[in-house]
């Protein structure tokens, strides 16, 4: 096949693909329409009398037409989606929409910050880095909008009654949402295409506008979904009393805060995965250096945002308990309790991956040996905390084993399954990862200030005091009543936050003008470090899918908890095994699509098409 035939084939392929896709859409629509519940027509017994066939058929048609004309309008409660069912279809589309939305909301947050650093310092590398991050935005924004539209239509088609109810409560929020979406499109495309075309401050203002509008959109959407979990502002019968109260329900603000932080962590990790993808395909040292740095920044953003995430999670859980103890206990002690063991595996892997990447990164700097000797202790601490966190309260055992243990809980390990142990483990994990960051930061540096020794001692004392205090409260929790124990998580969290802020503040002044033992050699990273970044991104994505499931699944057989009951065939809560399969498939679909986004972003760097010799250029 010669080049000309090839070109003709390619030329035809586009329209043919379009036609095939259009045909597929028509087929799906026809299929869905035919799936609507309809009573099959049955001829009345009187018509089945032996009559001439033509007259009989005419009678049948007339009777059917008369019946159709007399049929009253009945609101359909549910329609079914082929093969996988309505719930799984909505679940997958909603999850994909949320993953892309999270990415689109997160990237501008740190892109603007990096751009601002570049403007302030005059270092062009930051500007290039911020621009590189935003390259991923435009296609992701289109995919977010597409999945959002698909989700809306599917909700209207598959859950019309529930959608009607939500519209009755939230109709005043829909128009502002649409207008904000237009505003986001304006800011996003102007921000991306206007790079370098405006005064830097004007461009930064566009970026800030993009963030404000994006956050407002998320807050509105959060009002809808949190209302479903903790409805407010309505009568006992579900009638709207106050739209603002419906928006400002128990879990709205905790979810807003939790999502902003989680989005940044997730967006950072996906951007780092993009950098890893580019690093692995880089052909020059300069490219490798740039993408190594980009991966480091992306991962830095992800981990810095990830560290306070459990605290936001505590707040959310506290508000869920405050709204309904039943809902809280269903989450932590009922149908979903084992889900948190899976979560522990994921978070443990995130901490391990993040720390491992930092430890590998120490190799970029000459003179790293002095800090690398601490790695083994950090690894031990992480491994122990991981094991504590992943220990379940009750275990699956045979009757004989349960008798031997004296119950479903192991006589010793069972103590590690309660919240006192888990809170302690996660706080120590956070402190340990913070220490890894700190050690990485001072790799190849020696403090030169006169009070260096005192400063180091103070840092060590603060760290040790916080760790001992956290462990003490964890143990103390076993000996006090529930009402006291629940409150212990607050001083645990506060002490860790205090330690991180205080140690960072001291470190800032301690290493202000350090003596350097060597330069940072960006690009000198083993390939495995880049695979770690991709592993972290996949784990973050899977974690978001899992936690999205628990937040939504917590309502069990309610569309709106305690108000609109789910009476569809999907009203049951599936097994965790099934839920994790859906999450896995959704995550794979996301990475397939984000791979497409990465590829499209990479096209930007490729040289323009040049016809081969002998071919006519168009």
């Amino acid at each position, binding site marked *: 096949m010669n080049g000309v035939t090839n070109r003709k084939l390619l030329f035809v392929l586009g329209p043919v693909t379009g036609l095939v896709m259009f045909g597929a859409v028509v087929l799906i629509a026809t299929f869905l329409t035919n799936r609507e519940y309809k009573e099959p027509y049955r001829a009345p017994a009187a018509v089945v009398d032996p009559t001439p066939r033509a007259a009989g058929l005419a009678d049948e048609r007339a009777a059917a037409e008369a019946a159709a004309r007399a049929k009253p309008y009945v609101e359909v409660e549910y329609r079914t989606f082929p093969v996988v069912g309505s719930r799984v279809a909505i679940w997958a589309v909603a999850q994909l929409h949320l993953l892309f939305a999270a990415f689109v909301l997160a990237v501008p947050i740190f892109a603007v910050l990096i751009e601002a650093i570049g403007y302030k310092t005059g270092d062009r590398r930051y500007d290039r880095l911020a621009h590189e991050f935003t390259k991923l935005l435009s296609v992701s924004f289109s995919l977010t909008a597409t999945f959002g539209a698909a989700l809306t239509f599917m909700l209207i088609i598959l859950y019309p009654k529930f959608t009607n109810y939500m519209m009755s409560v939230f109709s005043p929020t829909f128009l502002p949402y649409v207008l904000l979406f237009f505003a986001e499109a304006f800011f996003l495309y102007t921000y991306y295409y206007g790079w370098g075309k405006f005064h830097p401050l004007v461009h930064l203002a566009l970026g800030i506008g993009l963030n404000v509008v994006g956050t407002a959109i998320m807050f509105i959407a959060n009002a809808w979904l949190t209302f479903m979990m903790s409805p407010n502002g309505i009568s006992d019968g579900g009638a709207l009393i106050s739209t603002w109260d419906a928006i400002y329900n128990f879990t709205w603000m905790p979810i807003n805060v939790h999502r902003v932080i989680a989005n940044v962590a997730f967006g950072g990790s996906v951007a780092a995965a993009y950098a890893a993808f580019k690093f692995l395909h880089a052909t020059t040292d300069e490219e490798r250096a740039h993408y190594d740095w980009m991966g480091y920044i992306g991962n830095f953003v992800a981990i810095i945002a990830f560290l306070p995430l459990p605290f936001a999670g505590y707040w959310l859980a506290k508000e869920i308990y405050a709204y309904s103890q039943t809902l809280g206990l269903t989450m932590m*002690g009922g149908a979903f309790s084992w889900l948190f*063991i*899976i979560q522990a*595996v994921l978070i443990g892997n995130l901490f391990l991956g993040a720390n491992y990447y930092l430890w590998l990164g120490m190799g970029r700097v000459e003179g790293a040996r002095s800090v690398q000797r601490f790695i083994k202790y950090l690894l031990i601490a992480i491994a122990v905390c991981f094991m504590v966190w992943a220990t379940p309260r009750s275990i699956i055992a045979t009757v004989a084993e349960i008798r031997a243990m004296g119950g479903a809980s192991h006589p010793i390990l069972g103590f590690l399954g309660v919240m006192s142990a888990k809170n302690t483990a996660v706080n120590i994990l956070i402190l340990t990862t913070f220490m890894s960051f700190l050690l990485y930061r001072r790799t190849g540096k020696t403090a030169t200030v006169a009070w260096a020794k005192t400063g180091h001692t103070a840092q060590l004392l603060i760290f040790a005091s916080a760790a001992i205090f956290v462990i003490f409260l964890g143990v103390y929790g076993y000996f006090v009543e529930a009402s006291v124990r629940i409150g212990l998580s607050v001083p645990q969290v506060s002490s860790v936050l205090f330690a991180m802020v205080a140690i960072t503040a001291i470190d800032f002044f301690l290493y202000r003008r350090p003596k350097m033992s060597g330069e940072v050699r960006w690009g000198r990273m083993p390939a495995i470090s880049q695979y770690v970044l991709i592993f972290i991104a996949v784990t973050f994505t899977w974690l978001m899918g899992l936690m999205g499931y628990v937040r939504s699944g917590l309502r*069990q057989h309610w569309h709106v908890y305690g*108000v609109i009951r789910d009476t569809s065939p999907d009203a049951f809560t599936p097994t*965790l095994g099934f839920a*994790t399969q859906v999450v896995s498939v959704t995550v794979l679909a996301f990475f397939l699509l984000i791979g497409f986004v990465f590829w499209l972003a990479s096209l930007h760097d490729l040289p323009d098409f040049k016809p081969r010799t002998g071919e006519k250029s168009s």
Partner: protein
Amino acid sequence: MTIPHSARIAALVVATTAFYGYVGQLVPQREVQPPQETLIRADLTTADMVKIGGELMVGKGLCLTCHTIGKSGALRFPDLAGVAARASTRIPGLSEIDYFAKSLYEPDSFIVPGFNPGMPVINKPPIGLTDPEILCVIAFLQTLGGTPTVTLQTSHAYYKAPGAPPAAPGGAPANATPTNATPAKGPVTP
């Protein structure tokens, strides 16, 4: 042969996802069905009510999601073992049945010392037990340290049984509803 990085990345993504999916298969698998409506026949005996009450406590009522029976130590909600023996002495002037009814219809009006409020109103959504179902739960609770006496003809402060006399046991008006019942404010005995 060198495997291209793109193939390795794809393999890593699939392997990581598959691993987490596999972890999901290792934990206990339980499908939770929506609670079934309980058929309360008019001719139920107390023994029948005890049986249905026990099922309601595990299922639709979600009682045992929070409460335990026969556990000690640092508990989040009161243990129910022997609760029938304690019920008649919790609030002066309230009988065992009225105390149980108050705990179920107006749970925040009395909190057992050492615990926090948190029990939902049982006759309203999301739990929404009916009045006869609540009588069955009370019958079951009476077996925990006492003798069940409740029948479907029993009235209490929040429910008037069909054909029951106007005054309910324990002194509270039989036709009182959860909205007009007066919460107990008196001293509380543990």
